[in-house]
């Protein structure tokens, strides 16, 4: 084993270009961010709202924010540790909690703009596909885009649980049922019942019963 040339020598450091801080920290995906935040120039100052869903180990955060040169402005944020304060019990990072948080977000947001009670969203939880329709003569439904951040958007992901909650609550977010739990990718069919069970936490309850029986 002879001498190996040192790769990280002075010349290397002199020429090294650091990535953006948030990219180095592994927090932002600039490829996605550029496409999510840019507003068409012929829409001038109209903010482009995005619903950011961040799943942490113990919590799920739903935020609605828009981009500003000084820094992103958060319009509204909800956390899964809030439902317990309103009396909803259960785990904080399961599908049901995340759905509820999305729902809470959708109901809280129009308040900020003074347009609550115009769009009620879906009153009954069916797990079925639902898209808010704007009512003529009233302010249009609040439109935003889902920002999954760095989460891998696999089917059944909690990010989509929050999305479903928000959509059922009355926000207008472009989506399809392909990534919801209950979608069969082979037969390309969406099983509404399975999705509904996930939303209601039935899958957790069923597993608990199964485990109890086993003992």
């Amino acid at each position, binding site marked *: 084993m002879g001498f190996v040339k040192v790769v990280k020598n002075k010349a290397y450091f002199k*020429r090294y270009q650091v990535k953006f801080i948030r990219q180095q920290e592994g927090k932002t995906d*600039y490829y996605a961010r550029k496409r999510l935040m840019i507003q068409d120039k012929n829409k001038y100052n109209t903010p482009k709202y995005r619903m950011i869903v961040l799943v942490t180990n113990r919590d799920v955060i739903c935020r609605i924010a828009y981009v*500003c040169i000084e820094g992103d402005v958060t319009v509204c944020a909800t956390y899964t540790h809030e439902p317990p304060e309103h009396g909803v019990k259960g785990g904080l990072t399961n599908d049901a909690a995340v759905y509820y948080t999305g729902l809470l977000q959708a109901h809280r947001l129009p308040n900020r703009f003074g347009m609550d009670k115009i769009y009620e969203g879906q009153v009954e939880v069916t797990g079925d596909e639902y898209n808010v329709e704007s009512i003529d003569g009233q302010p249009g439904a609040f439109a935003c885009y889902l920002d999954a951040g760095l989460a891998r958007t696999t089917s059944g992901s909690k990010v989509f649980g929050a999305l479903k909650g928000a959509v059922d609550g009355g926000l207008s977010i472009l989506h399809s049922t392909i990534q919801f739990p209950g979608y069969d990718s082979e037969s390309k069919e969406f099983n509404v019942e399975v999705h509904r069970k996930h939303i209601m936490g039935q899958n957790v309850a069923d597993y608990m019963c199964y485990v109890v029986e086993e003992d």
Partner: protein
Amino acid sequence: MTRYTSSRSFRKRGVVPLATYMGIYKKGDIVDIKGMGTAQKGMPHKCYHGKTGRIYNVTQHAAGIVVNKQVKGKILAKRIHVGIEHIKHSKSRDSFLKHVKENDQKKEEAKEKCTWVPLTRQPAPPREATV
């Protein structure tokens, strides 16, 4: 020549800072044109690099700009569409707009006090004599 003008600066390559895309451009704004090698779409022709023009149209990702181009013996006012990445607000207009604001304020104050204030800008005078 274009090898250097269209290339990115040392250690400034790669992902474009997103503030470039956040600028609001309106009709009548004065903008500088500077081609950016990272974004190949909507690039201005090399003869417009470094030119300043006025926006006459705004589309989704670009602005239509009226720029003066010298062609042999004459200067033509050309209309080109340039992507947002290659444009930035010109500061040439800022000093004038600031001057207008100051003038308006001076006029208001002078009106209240019923005096007359000279509003024209004066070039910097020669320095005072020092022995």
